[in-house]
Each structure stands twice: as C-alpha cells, then as structure tokens.
C-alpha cells in the first residue's frame, strides 16, 4: 500500500478578499497571477498578486467600470504578456498587465459575457492569435484583436424563444497554421464543435445538463480528448480521435463533487491529468488512462472511438463555496492558483504529479 506515491494537494498560501472573485490566471513566466472579479459596488476588480516566500503580496489593484468575468493569456506570446478579459457589459478588453491600461476594447456581446479563451500566441507555426468569447446572449464570437468586428459569430436562431446562455468556450485542434476548432457549451446542455477552417459544425450533441466548463486536453495538437463539466455533479470525457457518422464521439461520464462542476483544467505539463472544480469547494485530480485500443469497428466496418478509464488521484476541499477560477502554472508542475465564491484566493501545490 504505497499511499506515499499518491499526489497530495497542499494549500500553499491564501488570502481573504473583500470582493467576489471570478477568475484567476498565472502570468506566463512568472510567479504572479491576476485576480479578477466584482466589488460590492458592482465595479470591476483587477488585481495582480505575487507569490513570495509562501505569501501572497498584492502588486497592483486597479478598479474597472464593470465586473470582470473571465480572462486568458493564451493569445499572447511570452514576451508580450497581455491579458484578454470579458466583463458584465459584454466588453472584450485586452489589458497591459504592467500598467493595467486597456490596449484594445470592443463590445463583444449584447449583455454579459461569460467566458473567453485564446490561442495562437506561440509563434507563426501555430496560427494567428485569436480569441473566442461566449455570452448570455447565446452568441459565440471569434475575434482577431486587430479587427473591431468578429471573425466568426455563432448565434442562436432567431426562432428560438429562449436563447441559450453560453457558459463555456474553448479552442482546440490547432495542430498547424490552418486547422482550428472551437467547442462551446450552453446552459441547456448543448455542446457544439465548430470547425473554423471549413466553417462548419463538426459535432452537435446534448448532455442533458447545462455545461459549465469544457477544455481540450491540448490546444495545439490533433484533437485528442475533450473534458466537459456540467450541472448535477457530472462531467464527461470525449475521445475526439475517432468520429463515427452515427454515434459521433464516444464519451464517458463520471460523477463527482456532489454539486455543479464549474470547470476543468488540464495540466499544461501533462494532458492526461486534469483537475475539476467543484461547487462544493473541492478540487479533484484525475488521470485518464487510454484504452488498449482507441478505436473499434462496428458491424459495417466503420471505426468508432473507445474511451479509457479515469483514476481519481486525489481530492481536497479547499473552499466552502464553488471554486470558480483555477489555473495551473505553465512553468511549474503542480502549482495552481484558485479563487472561490467564499471570497478567498489560494495558491495550492499538487505534489508528485511527475510520477504520472
């Protein structure tokens, strides 16, 4: 019984807040992270913390006009660490993290924007930098930060009486300059996989429960796996290697957290490990084991995907309220920062992940 090899989740530093945090992201190549949220006066909060000898030191604290919901560094190269954010008013804003000044701003959604993801900040061979945003208006829009108008806009049909609320978006399949996909999840359980190269919908499904978070295991490879978290304590892992014309992508479902699962974050250092963020304030670390054969053929000889199995490596309750923001440090394996609705920001360390 070697419990010693199991990864441990350790609280490294924490700090209480006077506002409601929504998202936290490490600044690439640093021990600093940004913390975004909304103050009781309904104003936006943009803070930068520095991790220093087990303590969190606040470096910058800027006030913005509207509560900030979500942010990403993924479209920025390491040398220019600009952060793209979305806020309560549906504005997409790109900030300079040294001065906190907006570099670019555009009205992305009619009402509140929920989520943003970025891609392309890693050099020419990975394609141009792009951002994707999802809003309560049900729209998913792709942005080139050099243009004021969206590159692509996926909008709910006019005929739909109740417009779905888009809660999750992610980029993936960007294994060369041209290929690129976006996945979007909605509050009605719809999930859509849209190919940006061919401008067509690749896959469309409904998972019954509203989708709170989704992420490709790796953005810049031929799409491999997609983890989707939903309401009602459920999350799914889809194998995106094999598409079957009738069955679509094969997925497995897992119960966890006994509450809404707010999101999923794959380790930047290992795509087969990921953490899920529980509405009960717990963080679960899973490892995905591939099956011995990832595709089988059906009776007509058409291959379909086969899912592997999940191993829960550890779980820990880190907050009393849902964990809404979490980010793995891209430079240090197992280092993460998180914020929860109980107005806490924490830095955690997950040990022994190198063994998996």
């Amino acid at each position, binding site marked *: 019984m070697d*419990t010693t090899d199991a990864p441990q989740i*350790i609280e490294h530093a924490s700090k209480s807040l006077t506002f409601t945090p929504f998202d936290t992201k490490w600044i690439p190549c*640093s021990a600093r992270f940004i913390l975004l949220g909304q103050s009781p006066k309904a104003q936006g909060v943009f803070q930068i913390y520095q991790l220093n000898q087990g303590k969190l030191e606040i470096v910058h604290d800027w006030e913005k006009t509207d509560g900030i919901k979500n942010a990403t560094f993924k479209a*920025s190269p390491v*040398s220019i660490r600009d952060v793209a954010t979305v806020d309560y008013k549906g504005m997409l804003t790109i900030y300079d993290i040294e001065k906190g000044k907006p570099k670019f701003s555009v009205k992305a959604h009619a009402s509140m924007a929920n989520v943003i993801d970025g891609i392309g900040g890693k050099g020419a061979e990975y394609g141009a930098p792009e951002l994707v945003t999802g809003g309560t208006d049900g729209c998913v829009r792709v942005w080139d*930060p*050099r243009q004021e108008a969206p590159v692509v806009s996926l909008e709910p049909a006019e005929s739909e009486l109740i417009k779905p609320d888009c809660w999750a978006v992610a980029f993936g399949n960007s294994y060369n300059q041209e290929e690129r996909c976006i996945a979007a999840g909605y509050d009605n359980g719809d999930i859509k996989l849209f190919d940006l190269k061919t401008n067509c919908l690749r896959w469309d499904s409904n998972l019954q429960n509203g989708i709170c978070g989704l992420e490709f295991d790796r953005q810049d490879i031929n799409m491999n796996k997609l983890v989707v978290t939903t309401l009602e304590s459920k999350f799914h892992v889809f194998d995106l290697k094999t598409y079957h014309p009738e069955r679509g992508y094969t997925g497995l479902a897992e119960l966890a957290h006994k509450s809404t699962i707010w999101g999923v974050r794959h380790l930047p250092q*290992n795509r087969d490990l990921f953490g899920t963020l529980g509405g009960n304030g717990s963080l679960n670390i899973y490892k995905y084991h591939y099956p011995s054969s990832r595709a089988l053929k059906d009776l007509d000889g058409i291959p379909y995907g086969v899912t592997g199995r999940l191993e829960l490596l550890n779980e820990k309750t880190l907050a009393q309220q849902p964990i809404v923001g979490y980010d793995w440090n891209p430079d240090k394996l197992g280092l993460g920062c998180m914020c929860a609705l109980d107005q806490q920001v924490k830095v955690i360390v997950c040990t022994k992940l190198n063994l998996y």
Partner: protein
Amino acid sequence: MADPRFKNEEGGNSRPKYNLDKIDFDWVEKSTDVKELLKAHDALKDDAGFPDLLRAVSKRIILLDPKQRGRVGNSRVSVEDEQIAAKDIADFLNDIQKLDSKLSAGSQQNDDGAIFSRSGQQDLNRKFAEEIERKKQAEHERLKGNEFMKSKEYKEALDCYTKSIDMFPDDAATYSNRAQVHLMLKEYSKVIEDANKALQIQPDYLKALHRRGKAFQAVNKTELAIKDFQRILEIEPNNKEAMKNLKEARASKDHKKSSTAPKEKTVLEEIKEEVVEEKQVEQPKKEDKFVRVAIQEESDDEEQEEVKVESTSKVQANAESDKENQSKKSNIEVVNSQENDTWWKENNQKQQEQIKEQTKEVSAQKQPEEIPQVKIEEVQASQFKRIPIQEDDDDADDEEEVRLVNPYVEQNKPIIEEKKEEPKKVEQKSVEEQKKEAPKEDPEVKAKADEKIRLEKLIKEIDQIKEEASAEYKRGMYDDAVKVFEKAADLAEKNLSQYKYYKKDIIEREATIFNNIAACYKQGQHNKKEVEYCSKVIERAPYINDITILAKAYLRRGFAYEHLEKIADAKEDMIRVKEIQPNNQQASQALTRLNRALQDANKVDISDYELKIAKTKDAGNALFQQKKFNEAIAKFSEGVDIFLKNPDQLKKDKDIKLKVTQIYTNRSLSHHQLGNHQKAFEDADYVLKNLDQVNPKALFRRAIANKSFEKYEDSVKDLQNLFKQDQTKADIKTELDQCMRLLVEQNKAKKEQQQQQVPTIKETIKESVSNGQKIQEISSSINDLQEQIKKAEEESKNQEKIAKQLEEEVKKTSSALPKKTKNLNQEVIDKAADIATQQTNKNLIKAVPKTAAGFETDYNSLKKEPQTFYQYVKNIPFTTIENFFKNCEISAELFAAIVRVLSEYGLSEDIKHSAQLIKSLAKASSFDMTLMFMDSKEKNDLKQIINAIKNSSEIENDLVKEIVKIYNF
C-alpha cells in the same frame, strides 16, 4: 441568484441513503465488494461520526483495489511533504522571478500599443524575451512529445521532439527522449545518434546511456552495449533495468565468441551462400506488402554486387569495433541489412522502377543527415525481431514494454527470446549440439547441416511475418494481427514434415506464434479462442525447451479461463505456472484471486444456472400455452435437471428457488393436463417438501392429485391450507367443499362406530353450531382441542390425522362463519365437530396436563362428561396438582366440578384417592377464598365427601384429621 449553477444538488437526490447500521469492523474485514465498500466509505465520510471505521474501510478498499487510492486515500498532508513542496516552490520562485522582472522590463520599454505582437525595436531585452519564448516553446513541444509517447503515438512524438530540437537544440532530455522514440520505431542508428548528442550535452546522462546501450545491443554491437550498461551501473549500482540488459548482452557476447571463432574469415562467403540459398526457397507473395524496396536482379546486377562488397567489407571493419565512428557504423549496418532483405525479393517484377531509387538511397545513406526515414525504418524493422507481446501491457511503462533482442547472431542462429534467462539456455544448447555433431563427417551431419540452413531460412521467414503481425498488434488491429500470425503458423506447420532434425525448433516457434495469437485474442476479448490457442501451445509441451513459453501459455489460458469464469480450470493452470515458475507474481496474484473466487463460486455458478433455468422455464411456459404439454414437460424437466445437479446450493438463492418452484408447479400442471396425476403429485409434493411449504399452486395441485387418488383427507388438508392463505378464490372454495363432502362420505363408515360412542357430544355440538350465537364458544373449544391434540401426538397416527383435519376444518368454518355460513355444509361441520371432540376426549383421558391452565382447559372440554373427567383427574398425580395450584388459585368452578365427580364416582370407586385429592387441592393458594365462592349445593357435595372420608375405614387417621381440619364447616 437564478443561475442554476448555484444549486447545490446532492449529486442526484435519488441516491438512497446508505444504511450505516450494517457497517462494522467484521463486515469490513469480510467484504470483498469494492463498490459496496466505496458506498460505505462515502456514507461514512458524509456522516463523519466513525473515523476509525472510515479508516478501516479505506484500508480495506485500497487492499482490494489499489487504484481506488485516490478516492479513499488519506487527504491529510504530512509536514515533511509540505516542507518539500515549499522548498520546491521557493526554488522555482527564485528562478522565475528573475526571468519575470527581465520580461517586464522588456515590455515596459516596448510600450507602443501593439497587441500580441512585437514592435520593430531590436534591443537586448527583446532578444532575451524571444530567447525565453523559444525555450518555453521547445519545452512545450517536448512535453507534448512525452504525452504522445505515453499514448503510444510514436510518429507524433517524433515530430514534437524534432520540433523541440529545432527550436532549442541544447536540451539533452529532448535528444534522449527522441532516442527513445527511435528505439520504439527500431531505428537504431538514430537512437545512437541522438543518444550521443544527449551525452555530449550532458555526459553520463543515464537514460541516454541506457537507450544507446539497447540500440548497440540490437545492432549487435554487444561490446559497446556492455560498456554502456556498465557505465550506468557505475553511476547507479542498483539500476535493475541496466543489470538485466547487461546480463543479456553478456550472454549474447559469450555465445557469439564460442560460435563465431571458426567462421570468422568467411563472412563474405557466408552471405553469398545465404543469398544462393534464399533464391531457392520460394517466397510467399505477400512480401511486397511490407517491403516496398526491391531489386531486380538482371538490371542491376553490377550495382548490387558493388554494394554488397562494400557492405561486407565494412562489416568486417566493424568487427574490429572502432569506438569513435559509432554513428557511421550503424549506417553501415543499415546498408547491410537492406542487402539481405532485398535479395530474396528479386522475383517481384513490379518494382523495377524503385530499384534506382533504392540504389540512390543506399548511396545517400553514406551521408547520415539525408537518410529517408521511412524506408530505412521499414527495412530495419524486418531485420530485428520484436519480442512477443508481453502480458498486461496496457499499464506497463513504454520503455519496458518492448524488449529488443537480436535474433541474428553471426552464425545466423535465431534466438527465440521471451525472457532474459532464456537466451542462454537456447544458445548454449545449440552450441553444444554443434560441437557434438561437428566431428562426425558423415552424410547425416551433412543432411543435418543442410536442414539447419533451411531451418534458418524458414525461421527468418516466419519472423518476418511475425514482425508484420506485431506491427498490426501494436497498432491495435488485433484481428489483422491474428490473420498474419496464422499465416506464420501455417507456414511452420506446412514445413514441419520436411524437417527431421529440427522439428523441435519449428514446433517451438509455432508454439510462440500460437502464444501471440492468444495474446491477440485476449486483446479482442475472444477468451474461448484464447484458450484454444493456449491449449495448442500446451499440447506442444514435449517439444518446447523454453519453459517460459509454456508458462506464458498456461498463464494466459488461466486468465482466459478466469474470464470465462471457469475458475477451477483457471486455478489448475495457475498452479502449473507456479510449478514452472515459482516466482511468477501474476500467477500468485491470480491464485489468491481465484481462491477467493472459488469461495464465491456458488454465486458465480448460480447466476449461470439461474439463466439456464429461467430459459427452460420460459420455453416451457410458451409450449404450455400452445397446449403442447408433452414438450412443455420435456422443457421443464430440463430445467429440473439443471437444478438437480446442485440442489442444495441452488436452493439458497431465492430467485432460483422461486424459478425452480415455478417449473415444478408448471410441470405438475402439465401432468394434470395430461391426466398423469401421479407425476403431478410428485412434482407438487417435491415443491412442498423441499422448496416452499406454503406454495399455493403446489398445494392446489397436490390436492387435486390426491383427490384423484381418493385420498380426500390429504386433499382437504392442502385445500384448507390454501384457503387459509386466500379466502377469496372461488375455485378453491368449491374444490374444498367438494373434497370435504367426498371425505365425509368416505369416512362415514369409520365414523359411525365412533359416533355411537359419543352421542351426547355430537348433539351438543350440533346444537351449538346450529345456534349461531354460540359460535364463539365453539371456536374457543376447538382451539383447546387443537392444543390437546398436539399433546396427544403419540396416539395412533391415523386417528389423530383425521381429528386434526376435522378440527382445522371446524376451526376454519367457525372463523369463517360470520360471513360464509351459507357456503358451508352444515352437516359436514356437525360431523366434523363430533368426530373431533370425541377423538380428542379419548386422548385426553390418558393425558396429563402440564400446567394449571392446561388443567382448566381440559376441564372445560370435559365438563360435559363427568365420568371422563373423573378418569382424567384420577390420572393426575397429587403432587402435580399441588404444584399446579401452588401459586395460583383453583377456581371455584373447577373445584366444584372435581368435588362433584368425586362425590359421584370417586367415593364409590376409590375413596382413598379422593381423600388424598381433596387434601392436595386444599393446598392451593387462597383456598379459603375458593371455598367461600362455593354455592350451597357444592358445599353439600363437599360435606358429603368429608363425611364419607371420616367414616371410611380405609383412610388413615392422620389424613382424616387433616382434611377435617381444612374443611371445617
């Protein structure tokens, strides 16, 4: 907030609350059901009241299934762990903060508003930032490569590592990793190349050394391989992997020395010879599938000759083992191997065009950078044998999974190698053989030598096919792999008859192939096929030198049996494995598992039986509905047979019991339908005796069967039981009435005599029954009767039975009377009551009550028959009576009755006894009170008795005095 995400549903409210009561330490110790334990664990965790129990459950779960560790493991973090983590983070912070500040400085200078892109300025900071970016990106690619390695996507991994190296060429780890990919892809020259680069950057980089060692060994540079492995062990003396490899390398080196010495000078000749040989052997046509390159002999004879000479000469040069030009040497190896492979494909006409390309390639290979990767890959792949697939490879680390061996030692003796111990044996043996045979220069030896050459060729051929199959296997195309393996097996089988001396080798090889096929089937979950092929291997046991093959076959078959739930067979196989390889861990684990399973075997078997039984039942029912009774009976009998194989165990399972019961009752009904009442009776009887005592269907069917045999009592009995269960069914009622009537008629004759004996009782009961008001009284008296009957069980069985039945009948009648009086035949009731009363009374006379209450109830039933009551009382010993009333009063009524019978019969029959009885009764508690409640008539009776006693001469004076003293009126 309206946001549904804030609803904190408790993970599906439908989940039933776990019953914590059943969890205790014993239960935890015994439980083997991980799922159940996990439920218990979660429940305990939620409850949080039993930390010790929770720990015990967690321990048990981890013991049973270590993979659940994450779920149940202790989430508390030790101080040491925390410190280590803190230190780790501190180190990281140190490095990263410097980097960060530099980057920040750069971007502050660079404040020109460009988004996500760089300005045109070229300053130092810019360059620095770009450098960092490149490094990060390279690392990212390397990590991606590692991920692809883990999921066995070697091609992608190779691309990623190459990209990483392009971006940042100074990382030893990336080179070492790429060497690993090459190793997996069997591109040994590239392995060596990359490993060398890694070692240049970081000397004594263990992984790189190790990989290079393996590659050296694979390309037959045993000396160099040994050197690398030794170096690893110098740095890390406990590196098991290296030790193992070193052992292997040494073994093959020893072998090489002993076998190559006499032949060394003729390397060139040997190759030529081989070429000739290979021309003679007809090649299967499929070869063009896996070797794209082919040489047309006529057109390019000269060139080929050239290449050959070149290669062979270099091989010779290699033999001198020049240390410095390792990478170059390996290229030469490639040339050489290509040569060998292409020779025997000359018949292939289609590929004429490729020849030129190929020759170009051959020349191109002199410049290592320009080697066209794919082709060499393929050619090389055919030279080096891939080890047969290991058991349980899903979880094995990639590095360990595929072990490479060189089947091609210089004398061309292939080595079948599965485990590390093995090559020694085989090699030594063959060497010995050779030595023995060598001196005899007779034709037999020659024939043998010839055959040996042919054998080598055949084996090579088989290996090629196997290689192809392995590739399929690796890709996960198990069906295709099986097909290819089967081809190899066919080939071996076909050629078997042509060999005289080396049959054994071929059979052994064949066995290996079968083993591999079994492995394929295992992956495809075709357990039966797996068993079949493993059995084939085992059949060949007498020919197999290498026990590991056998062990593997047994192990695999064991696993297959386990999957097929043939636990006993599986266990047998595992025991065999343990005999062959006492240290085989898989077998040990399997054995413990199997033993546990054997204990639970009942369950496993049962589910199987259950299914079968259910099937026969359904089939039978269907036939029954079609009124094919005979067929239905046959089907039901099948089910019964299944059940009867193991009735005791199966009976324990509720579901099966139910189903079997249904089968029996249904079969019984079928027999009834055919008029075969005897069989119907047997079936129903079996159910009632062995399966379900109160099964209504069985009862009903037995009753009908009994009716047909004119055994009305039994029939009535069953129907009554049935009626008790369900009073609403009309058919039961009518049947009961009918049977009852029949029974009564049948019994009339018998009864008549008895009736005469007790006419009074008959009348009284008749009265009471007809007099609806007294129904309650009857029922109570009947109840009493029942009790008494039980006491009188020793009595003649036949009588008792009748009595009991009747009594029951009456009882039911009386209880049902308020509603159903009309339905019941009055006459029957009367008669039944008569017989019952009379019969029980008879018995009662001889019975002795056990308690005062019993005495009183007996009195109640006998009070109408004073004489019988006297007899009854007389039978009771005085001490018993004394005991009865020691602690309770004797009722005035009872006492009076006793006095009355005494005065009536006692005084005349046995005055002494009467006196004694009177005295004993007087000892009852509160006897004074009893006396007070007596009326004058009774008192007179008593006085009479006392006087009689006084006057009697038979009684002792003391007793008289005592009585008089008590009954002092």
